[in-house]
């Protein structure tokens, strides 16, 4: 029987599984993913906007799942359905409110410093994809609002050349994008965003010129 090869950082192991596990251990060990301490300067309510945005997104998804299960007509004809639509509507409002507050906070903290430019860029992409998701949602309402939004927005889509591929007058397409494809996209992006935040840790305060780093 052969002796097991000693595994060191210098040797690349043959096992892909082991290599993946080691990469994860290096990039995001559990105590970085779920730390129970933070730098002492994480002591402002501005830091809370990110997690509150996530909380709002959870409520958007939960209410959306109920609406999707019952079908797109339900909320027009049922009081309970209308309540879940309201929950979905207001959760979305809260989601955008807190996401923008989080953006303001991160901007004034220059949260992209020290190698965090990707975190910032992913955040902007989340903002854009969220707007697209909300847009398909408004188009899926099957009421006057969605009629006029569709008729009006088609001109911008057509002018940009995408109107045939993203037909806002096509309820089936907009609905499918809204309840499945775009939420999957938003979720993947949010998870990625959280992972890079945890992998890098919270950015340090902005230092005045010439000050010694603390």
């Amino acid at each position, binding site marked *: 029987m052969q002796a097991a090869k000693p595994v060191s950082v210098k040797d690349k192991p043959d096992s892909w599984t082991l290599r993946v596990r080691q990469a994860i251990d290096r990039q995001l060990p559990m105590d970085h993913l779920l730390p129970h*301490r933070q730098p*002492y300067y994480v*002591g*402002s*309510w*501005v830091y*809370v*906007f990110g997690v509150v945005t996530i909380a709002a997104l959870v409520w958007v998804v939960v209410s959306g799942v109920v609406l999707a299960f019952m079908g797109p007509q339900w909320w027009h004809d049922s009081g309970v359905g209308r309540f879940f639509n309201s929950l979905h509507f207001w959760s979305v*409002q809260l989601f955008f*409110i807190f996401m*923008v*507050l989080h953006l*303001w*906070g991160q901007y004034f903290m220059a949260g992209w410093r020290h190698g965090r430019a990707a975190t910032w860029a992913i955040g902007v992409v989340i903002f854009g994809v969220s707007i697209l998701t909300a847009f398909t949602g408004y188009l899926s309402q099957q009421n006057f609002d969605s009629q006029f939004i569709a008729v009006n927005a088609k001109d911008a889509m057509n002018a940009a050349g995408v109107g045939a591929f993203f037909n806002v007058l096509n309820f089936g397409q907009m609905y499918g994008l809204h309840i499945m494809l775009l939420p999957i996209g938003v979720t993947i992006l949010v998870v990625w965003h959280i992972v890079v935040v945890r992998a890098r840790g919270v950015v340090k305060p902005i230092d005045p010129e010439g000050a010694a780093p603390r």
Partner: protein
Amino acid sequence: MDATTSYFHWGFILISVPNLLVIAGMIVLFAVALVAPFPRGREDEDAGS
């Protein structure tokens, strides 16, 4: 809630009162978050990690 709402018109800016409330509320919330004291945990840890 399904009646038409009022609008705030200033120069070329035309914004519904509900939208104005949301945006004004966000600015107020951001300002409050900046100044409100944050609950402090026990300081029992050594420097570094």
